[in-house]
């Protein structure tokens, strides 16, 4: 689509078109101003000439009244200098020239009553350049005719000269404008081209490429900064996706493989029906685990896409947390754990009750799972503490245990999908529990943080205060 020729490319750019339009507008404005100025100047000059002519005509009329035609003829003759600016022509009623420096009655004036512009040649010599004059007729008694005029050739020269200067000026202005537009468009083009080249190479898969900045901090730099920020985000998302698909490959393929193995083993088992039955039961169990993982993944993905925002309802957070904790109480008791619940009714929040419930359930489930180990190993009882606190920064749901805890270096990592610390690999679970808690928190505009419970782990799910409004 883009022409190869740099000139035609520059001409086809927006920058150049803008420059051209701007130049055109300037030219029109300048033309109007200059034209007005010229016209006005011309008018003033012409008026002055006419004023002079009228006064002279009055004077000559007075001479004619006083001394008749001969006196007038003398006066006209006295004024008629061959190279002077004053132009005269006195004719008898029979149209014969009596006096004056005009060789003939200008035809432009002959028929006019108010006078006007005419052309004449000096001394009536043919071949000489016609000069421009302006004249008025003076009415005389007895049919004689007098024309009083003035040479305005100088004025015409001046006008011509001015016109030429303006034309040249306009020409230069347009050239400069267009050239400027061309240069600006070249500069802009070059930088846009750089952005385009970077974009193209990014489109071809090199996501690490970035658009270079000129350092001027102008709009193009802003554009480049935004593009780069967008690319950073895309790259992060892509990496996340890659990580997830790697995880899926591992965490879904492993149980799939187990499932396949158990089916195969059942088929191969020579002991017959009972083995087959066991194999099938095994298969279904594995399939159920897989479905669980799959559902968890899907739910997290949909939460991250913000798909469940409109399913919020009003409920008592304290009561829901207490309810969920009570659901786990017998389980905790069975595993020699004391579940301490520090949550009174309130605050009322607008959120997704099921998801918040599930997040709290995941946290309590984890706490029981990991601290029960420690309790069993040391044959002591241990406790899990669940509490809801309303602070200025937000509403905190905290679940704390006395288990092995998580080293501070690993705390960020365990929030990611499928991340299971080596120690917990032996425990049942999908590795999605905390990721889901985080996704739920984020969906509600909150956050999750992991702390040292000295000893043990404390997970705090913070929901923004505005949910309680």
């Amino acid at each position, binding site marked *: 689509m883009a022409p190869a020729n740099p000139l035609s490319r520059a001409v086809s750019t927006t920058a150049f078109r803008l420059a051209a339009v701007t130049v055109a507008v300037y030219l029109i404005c300048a033309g109007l101003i200059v034209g007005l100025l010229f016209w006005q100047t011309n008018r003033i000059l012409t008026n002055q000439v006419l004023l002079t002519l009228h006064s002279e005509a009055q004077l000559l009329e007075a001479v004619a009244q006083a001394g008749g035609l001969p006196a007038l003829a003398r006066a006209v003759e006295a004024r008629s200098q061959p190279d002077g600016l004053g132009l005269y022509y006195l004719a008898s009623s029979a149209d014969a020239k009596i006096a004056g420096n005009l060789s003939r009655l200008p035809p432009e004036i002959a028929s006019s009553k108010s006078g006007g512009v005419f052309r004449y040649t000096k001394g009536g010599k043919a071949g000489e350049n016609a000069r421009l004059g302006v004249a008025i007729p003076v009415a005389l008694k007895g049919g004689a005719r007098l024309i009083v005029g003035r040479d305005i050739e100088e004025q015409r020269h001046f006008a011509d000269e001015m016109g030429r200067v303006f034309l040249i000026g306009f020409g230069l202005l347009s050239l400069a404008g267009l050239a400027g537009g061309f240069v600006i468009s070249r500069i802009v083009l070059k930088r846009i081209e750089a952005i385009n080249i970077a974009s193209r190479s990014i489109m071809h898969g090199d996501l690490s490429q970035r658009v270079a900045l000129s350092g001027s901090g102008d709009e193009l730099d802003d554009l480049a900064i935004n593009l780069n920020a967008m690319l950073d985000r895309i790259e992060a998302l892509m990496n996340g996706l890659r990580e997830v698909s790697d995880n899926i490959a591992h965490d879904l393929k492993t149980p799939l493989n187990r499932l396949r193995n158990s089916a195969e083993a059942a088929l191969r088992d020579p002991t017959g029906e009972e083995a087959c039955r066991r194999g099938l*039961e095994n298969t*279904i169990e594995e*399939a*159920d685990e897989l*479905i*669980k993982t799959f*559902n968890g993944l*899907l*739910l997290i993905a*949909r939460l991250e896409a913000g*798909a*469940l925002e*409109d*399913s919020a309802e009003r409920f008592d957070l304290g009561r829901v947390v207490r*309810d*969920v904790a*009570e*659901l*786990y109480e*017998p*389980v905790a008791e*069975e595993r020699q754990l004391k579940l301490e619940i520090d949550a009174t009714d309130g605050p009322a929040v607008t959120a*997704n009750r*099921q*998801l918040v*419930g*599930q997040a709290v*359930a*995941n946290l309590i*489930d984890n706490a*029981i*799972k990991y601290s029960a180990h420690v309790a069993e190993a040391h044959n002591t009882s241990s406790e899990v503490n669940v509490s809801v606190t309303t602070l200025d920064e937000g509403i905190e749901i905290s679940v704390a245990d006395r288990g092995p805890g998580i080293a501070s270096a690993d705390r960020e990592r365990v929030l990611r999908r499928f991340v299971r610390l080596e120690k917990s690999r032996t425990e049942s*679970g999908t590795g999605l*529990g905390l990721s889901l808690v985080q996704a739920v928190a984020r969906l509600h505009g909150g956050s999750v943080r992991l702390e040292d419970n000295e000893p043990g782990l404390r997970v705090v799910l913070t929901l923004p205060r505005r949910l309680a409004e």
Partner: protein
Amino acid sequence: MLTSNYIRTWQAGELMRVLVIEDDRETAQFLQKALKESGHSADIAEDGEVGLGLAEEGSYDVLIVDRMLPRLDGLSVIKELRSKGLRTPVLILSALGDVDDRVKGLRAGSDDYLTKPYAYSELLARVEALARRPVPEEQETRYIVGDLVLDRLSHRVIRDGETIQLQPREYRLLEYLMKHAGQVVTRTMLLEHVWDYHFDPQTNVIDVHVSRLRAKIDKNFDKPLLHTVRGAGYTIRDGAG
């Protein structure tokens, strides 16, 4: 239509007529066969329009409706049926499994919602629970299973003349089980109806709650009433079998 207002009340052990509206032939046939083996009869409709027609004409006890159907989607089928005054209980099957989708399904007029993939035992338990659901809700004041009596007015539980002290949650658990006496109730059903949770609690917390309840109602008596149904859930009933 004569059949439209006629609601049959299903009793445990009785044959149940089911219409399966499902476009995947294999799934539909699997359900038909499985339902037959469970002692029920099932017809199949492979798209929404045929399904709607059959549901309007036939007297079915329960409809099992897939959400994604050719010609007329599942939710529209249900809306259409409900607008015509047909109140046959409907179980929706869906590959979508969000809280949102479930709410949408229930709003459209379905009575229960099950996400694919599901266990057949779960489906059967839910379908039987639906078929039995008395419409309109019958206000029974006492549930009786053998010598166990649950008085819904005084919230008292008595077995063989002896009052049994239950926690509020245990009482509700028993109430739900007894309401569906003779039927299989799955863990998910308990979680949904007794706790109102529609999520997976990871650990089998329900088992622990049921075993506590069992300790209270069965421990000191010769004949156990609360039974575990392997691979499915629980049932409360008088007598072995």
